Every structure is written in structure tokens, then in C-alpha cells.
């Protein structure tokens, strides 16, 4: 009997975040009329196709640096800068492909700078990325002189032709990241560096380089999110990224990711993103006005760390 009770608890610990997601979904469906009505598929469809992809991508951009024991606070302004550069390239050259490449390169540049400062020079992760957040925020305001760029319809057509493109892109990114970080040798090395960078270096791994690549990947994902966002919004605004960093952290944490190196999994980003989306929309349906969303996200972050502490305690009791 004891063995079987144990793995029930183990199961709960492993799948706890999925349980949270299901509970939230059921609660909101029961208590509100049109959150989930079988006939009103448009509502859930709209959430899944329009909002969920963005939260999942944001969570992914945050989880990857967490694997190597760091974090990336510049996700928000990375999104603004890379999407604005992309819009500028479109305005100048009318060539969407070139614009996408330019945007992704800006995102990777920010990621690499973050990685270099953290891995090679030794600046603490949150100080480096927090300062980079402010620099990028200022940079996008300077190059945009406050104005915004609109009307890049040819670029938007790529994404808006089929309503499911955003979801497809986010799922593709999620699966690729999952394979890269859990199945490959590179992924195993990244987890080793996250667990103990010194031991990894002694085991012949280029731990500094691996950390830089992690931040580069985060920048790449952030840039992609930015371009998806401006194609959805139809305008590249310099103040776009503001609240995204907080949402990314909330999604990553509630999904089960942890700032302790090598404890986060790519699946945390998927589950975390879905939880945030269901929670935000659910809150609206039970009458909480939209302005309270930021506050809810703050509460989620605190709840996530309490939940993690509880699970840790259960785990140590078990072993």
C-alpha cells in the first residue's frame, strides 16, 4: 500500500501544474455562462488561436534561460525593439522576408549581449538583463522618435491568412525547443551547465558558450513573438513590450519553472501559458474588469512560489 501511495504523491508532484490548469478550466466553465459553451466554440477558439500562442511563446522565452540557472528580464523590450526594426525594414524595403530576418537578428543580438555579460564577464543575470531592458526600451523610443509604423499589409497577410498560424508557429517552436533541450546531447549539456557550471566546464563542456546560446535562443523566441504581435495588432508601437516581461515570468513560474538551474522543463512553458490564458479570460467572465489583470498576475507569481515550496516539502518528506 505504501508504495502505491507514494507514486500517487509523485504523480501529483510531477503533474501538479496540469491539475491546476484543469481545475481552473472546470471552475470557470461551471461558474460562467459563455466561457465554455459547446455551441459557442468561437469563444474558446478565439482564446486558443489569438491569445494562447503569445503567452506560450513568452513563457518559452523565459524558461530557456531558467534552465541554465538565469533569467531574462529584457523579453519585453526585446519584443518592442525587434518588432519595430522589422516594421522599419518593411517600410523601407517592402520585403517581408528580409524584415523577419532583420527582426530575428535584433532579438538574437540582444540575447547574445545578455549572455556575454552574464557568462563571460560575470554580471548577475537579473542585473544584466534588467539594464538591457532599459537600454532596449530607450533605443526603440530613440529610433522611432515616438512615432509608430502601420500599414504593412503584405507582411500581415503571411500571418493572418489562416486564423491558426499563430498557434501553429508557437507549437512548432515549443516542439523544437522540447526536442533540442531534452532529447539532444546539446540539451543534456545545457542542463549540466544549469545544474553546476563549474563541474560542466571540468567535464569538458564550454559552459560559458552554452549559457550564451541559451540567452540567444531566448532573444530569438522573443523576437518571433514580437513580429507575431505586430502582425496581429497591425501597428509597431515603441511602447509595445511594457507588460510582457511580467506576463512571461508569471506564465513560466505558474507552469512550474524554477530559478534553480536545471529544474525547469520546456513543458512548463506550455502549461504555464495555458494557465495564464485561461485565468485571464476566466477572470473577465466572472466580472473582474480587465484593469485587474496585472494585479492578478502579481498574485499568480506569489502563489507559484508558495506552491513550489509546498511541493518541495512534499518531495523531501517522500525521499
Amino acid at each position: 500500500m505504501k508504495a502505491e501511495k507514494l507514486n500517487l504523491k509523485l504523480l501529483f508532484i510531477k503533474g501538479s501544474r496540469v491539475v491546476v490548469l484543469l481545475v481552473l478550466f472546470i471552475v470557470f466553465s461551471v461558474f460562467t455562462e459563455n466561457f465554455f459553451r459547446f455551441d459557442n466554440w468561437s469563444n474558446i477558439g478565439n482564446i486558443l488561436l489569438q491569445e494562447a500562442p503569445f503567452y506560450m511563446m513568452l513563457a518559452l522565452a523565459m524558461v530557456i534561460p531558467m534552465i541554465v540557472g538565469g533569467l531574462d528580464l529584457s523579453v519585453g523590450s526585446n519584443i518592442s525593439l525587434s518588432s519595430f526594426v522589422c516594421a522599419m525594414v518593411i517600410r523601407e524595403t517592402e520585403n517581408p522576408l528580409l524584415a523577419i530576418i532583420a527582426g530575428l537578428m535584433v532579438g538574437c543580438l540582444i540575447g547574445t549581449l545578455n549572455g556575454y555579460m552574464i557568462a563571460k564577464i560575470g554580471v548577475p543575470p537579473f542585473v544584466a538583463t534588467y539594464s538591457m531592458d532599459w537600454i532596449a526600451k530607450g533605443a526603440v523610443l530613440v529610433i522611432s522618435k515616438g512615432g509608430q509604423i502601420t500599414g504593412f499589409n503584405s507582411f500581415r497577410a503571411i500571418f493572418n491568412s489562416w486564423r491558426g498560424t499563430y498557434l501553429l508557429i508557437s507549437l512548432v517552436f515549443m516542439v523544437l525547443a522540447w526536442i533540442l533541450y531534452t532529447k539532444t546531447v546539446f540539451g543534456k549539456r545545457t542542463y549540466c551547465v544549469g545544474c553546476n557550471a563549474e563541474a560542466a566546464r571540468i567535464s569538458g563542456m564550454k559552459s560559458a558558450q552554452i549559457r550564451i546560446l541559451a540567452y540567444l535562443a531566448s532573444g530569438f523566441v522573443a523576437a518571433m513573438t514580437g513580429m507575431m504581435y505586430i502582425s496581429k495588432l497591425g501597428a509597431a508601437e515603441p511602447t509595445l513590450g511594457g507588460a510582457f516581461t511580467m506576463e512571461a515570468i508569471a506564465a513560466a513560474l505558474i507552469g512550474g519553472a524554477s530559478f534553480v538551474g536545471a529544474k525547469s522543463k520546456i513543458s512548463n512553458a506550455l502549461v504555464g501559458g495555458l494557465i495564464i490564458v485561461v485565468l485571464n479570460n476566466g477572470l473577465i467572465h466572472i466580472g473582474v474588469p480587465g484593469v485587474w489583470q496585472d494585479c492578478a498576475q502579481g498574485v499568480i507569481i506569489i502563489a507559484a512560489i508558495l506552491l513550489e515550496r509546498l511541493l518541495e516539502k512534499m518531495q523531501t518528506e517522500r525521499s
Partner: protein
Amino acid sequence: MKKKLLGVLLTAVVTTSLLAGCGSSEEPAAPAAQEEPENVEEAEEETEAAGEVAEPEEATEEAATSEGIDTSENYLEGKKIVVLLKSYTHMFWVEAANEAEMLADQYGCEVEILAPTVANSNEEQIELLENSLVSPPDLYIIVPADSQGIAPAIAEINNEGIPIVNVNTQITDESVSYDSYVSANQYDLGYTTVSTAIEKLGEEGKAIVIFGKPGAQTYMERDEGASAAFAEHAGWEVLDNQVANGDRNEAMTVMQTLMTKYSDIDLVYAEDGEMALGAAEAIKAAGKEGEIKVVGDNSSVEICDAIKSGALYMVYDDAAWSQMETGFKVANLVLGGQSVEDTYYSPIYLVDSDNVEEYSKRYDE
């Protein structure tokens, strides 16, 4: 029974005045050349400002219209003017800034444009004004983000004795003073936009109002005007009034939220162009284009394109350029020591699918 009779009587009065109102604003707002004073040439609007429509409730004192101003002498030559706007990112203020720079060249005066980095941030505006006093200009043209919050900085300018022309958003704090207030009649803008929309869409329907930024007098007056207009049409129900701070991105999220909450919406009145476009995007993304009509205020190249493509139904443009132009004219009078009225209303223009081609030509030059 009595209530019903009153309702009928009221609608009769309103419709007659409405007809008079929109009758006058029906002609296309064609820019007309005006005789050229020696060095000041500007596109002067011929049509009578729609401001003439008598609002039913509070009677604002008779406001002078913008074209009655004598622009023969140019007192601004060589003077320095500081123009404070609400933000750099909102298209309305980008247009106002460009217009101010153009007018400065025409008048031959030096202009410095200030705006807070955080849009609509009252604290930054106060700091910007305080710092500008280090090398004080001859005149301020001020658009406060917060009608009452700006008071400390205005008090500082008042004791320096520098004249102020208050444009677009009125400074409503009694303890401070300014020389003149130039704007489109905001109450009237809100009222007319909603009334015209209802007139086109019919007597029944459900509407959503997307509010700009609480604390800013322009949005408050437009909101009062809109509510008054909705009140006159019993058939219309205002489902919700949500804040979006004049930000396209916020308006989109607010619209997305409201569409999930209310399943059948007919009309959305967004209190400025940015929010209107944001709402339109959310509607298009949800696949409900055409079902929900979006109306708003201000105009720009992008708004005109949106009207052409049907994303937006119609807008009333309170024309940042004409407000700024009137502002400079009043400034000219003030610096010339001539007496000025307390309030000047600049005209507002209807832009809908019929006259959008013609109206957007204005942006080409």
C-alpha cells in the same frame, strides 16, 4: 403614460436641432484658399464650425470661432514658443507637432516641442515645464495630460508672468490662470459623433464606449457628449464603458475582452482614433468585421485607409492641425498685446465612406 409623452417630445426637439446641426456639416470640408496676408498663409476653413449646434443642457458662453481672428501683424517673429504635448507616440500629437513646426517656420519664430516619454504622464509634464523655466520662452502652448494635475507647474509659470495658450485639453484648476483656451468643442465632438452614428445605424442597438484617459478633460467631455446622445435614443443600450488610455494596444485587449463577455454588439464608440483602430483590429481578428461598427474621433492617413477598407465606419476629426493653427493665431494676438476671448472653438469634420477619398487628399501634401 406621462413618461412616454415626455420621451416623444424630447426626441422631436432633438431631431430638429440635429437636422440643423448635421445639415450644416454636410458639405464636404473642402479646404479653401483665403486671401494671403503678407507673410501668413494658412488653409482657412470656410464652413461654419459645427460648434454652432446648441447643446441642450449646459449653455457654454458664446465661443468665438477660429477664423474671426485678425492675423494682419506678426508679433511672433523672433520669439520663442514652448509647445507641451501629451505624448510622442499618439498619432494625433505627432500631427500636432508637425503642424507646430510648420507654423513656426511660417511665423519665423523658434519652437521647442516637449512631451513626456511615458504617454499622458502628468509628473513628467510638470518636470518638463519646471526645467523649461531655466531659459524661459516668450509664450507657452500647453496641452495638459491631466486638467487638474498640471496646476503646480502652471502656478510656477504664472509667477514668472509668461503667457499661456491652453490647447485641446482645458486646464480646469481654478487656482491657476491662462490667457486663452483653444480647442474643438469636445462635448460637441462626442455628442455629434454618436448622434450621427445612431442616425445612420437606426434606432435600436447595443453599444460599447471605450473611454480615453480619466483625468483628461477632453475625454471626459466627449464621454459626457456621447452619453447625452445615447440618452436621447431610448432604443440604444450602452453595454459597457471601459478605459483604454488612448492606447491602441490596450484598446485591442479591452475589445477582445468585451467581445468574449458580450456576444452581440452593434456599435463601438472609441473616444479617439488610436483606440478606434485598436478595437477594429480586435474585431477583425475575431472574424466579426462588418457586424460591429466602429466610430471614433481624430483622423489620420491610417484612419482614412481604415474607413476605405470598411474597418472603421466613420469618424469626426477634431483636426489637430486646425487646433494648433488657431493656437498660434491666438498666441500672435496675445504677444501683440491685443485682447483675446477666453475660448476659441475650432471646427470638427465628419469623415465617412463618402468623403474619405477627398478628405485624405489633405494628407498627401
